[in-house]
């Protein structure tokens, strides 16, 4: 399994269409680096994006430099994945 240690999901709130456009630009600037879980759609909807650990610094700097406010939705994806895998293994043992 791919390891997602340190990868985060950032929730970005765009104020207007211009800020949404800056988020859309990220897909072109960082192809295959930023994985939009909820893509830039409209200002009323949050944008959630998974950012690999190696890109976190750059992406956060990009957001901050353009005045895009964000919060960390998931701090470390691998922690959740480990919990998920453990829960599956436990359930599998009980089912058997």
């Amino acid at each position, binding site marked *: *399994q*791919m390891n*997602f240690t340190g990868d985060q*999901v950032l*929730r970005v709130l765009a104020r207007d269409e211009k800020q949404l456009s800056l988020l859309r630009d990220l*897909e072109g600037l960082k*192809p*295959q680096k930023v*994985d*939009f*879980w*909820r*893509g830039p*759609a*409209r200002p009323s*909807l*949050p944008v*959630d994006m*998974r950012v690999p650990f190696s890109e976190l610094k750059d992406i956060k700097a990009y957001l901050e430099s353009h005045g895009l406010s964000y919060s960390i*939705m*998931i701090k470390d*994806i691998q922690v*959740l*994945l480990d*919990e*998920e895998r453990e*829960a*599956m293994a436990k*359930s*599998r043992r*009980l*089912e*058997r």
Partner: protein
Amino acid sequence: STSSFSYSAYHNLEEIYSWTDNFVMEHSDIVSKIQIGNSFENRPILVLKFSTGGPRHPAIWIDTGIHAREWITHATGIWTANKIVSDYGKDPILTDILKAMDIFIELVTNPDGFAFTHSMNRLWRKNKSIRPGTFCIGVDLNRNWKSGFGGNGSNSKPCSETYHGPFPQSEPEVAAIVKFITAHGNFKALISIHSYSQMLMYPYGRSLEPVSNQRELYSLAKDAVKALFEVHRTEYIFGSISTTLYVASGITVDWAYDSGIKYAFSFELRDTGHYGFLLPATQIIPTAQETWMAIRTVMEHTLTHPY
């Protein structure tokens, strides 16, 4: 047997297919399994048929898991299938529905992608098709349908997560459904289940143009969301896909609507932004319980509003 199966846990493809076989065997009076095709990597594409027999009834289609990483949708589909057999004969509305209509559920719409989420990449979305000239793998199966194919909200670049594929219905997972539904010819409702962000939506995705039945679909979505809310007080928003979420072309429900299936809906299940695609298994049953009430509302309306 299915008695040891935990509906409050996530399962891999082998476990789901094994559950399917046991489930069909245990409820052979009402459930059967149909293989409608094979995936790109040659896995069987299976559909559960719930029918009380008789001539070919009007039918309702439900699919889950077209996006591989949306595990809550497969889990909800399995719980729903079990709910149908548990409640048939007890719930008068469901019983009436099944006396007049058949229900088809495709639990794993993207089997290759789903298997890949268990073996290699938990966050994989697309299918696993490969083609010469690109090193990127996979097509977004929810951009590969004929309706509005290649338009706004889909991508022509194979590396994109919303890559629409080389031509409409190029992907065997989509082509199999199109062939099956078209050959059947009597589907009256289609419900395509996704996650996440808590929405219930109807066509169009491809444009802001309201569909001709917009008022009825809006009203039905409102009723369905209300029924859903009453279970665990989970709030959904609703409306057309393009006005509620985003413009997306080549999607399942647009194809369904354009193919004459008026009651075409797309769900985005829990949550609104804590876990996203990594929704803990403890939330499977509450999610499925509330989703069921919305599905039931759509199915009941389909029964009582024949067209």
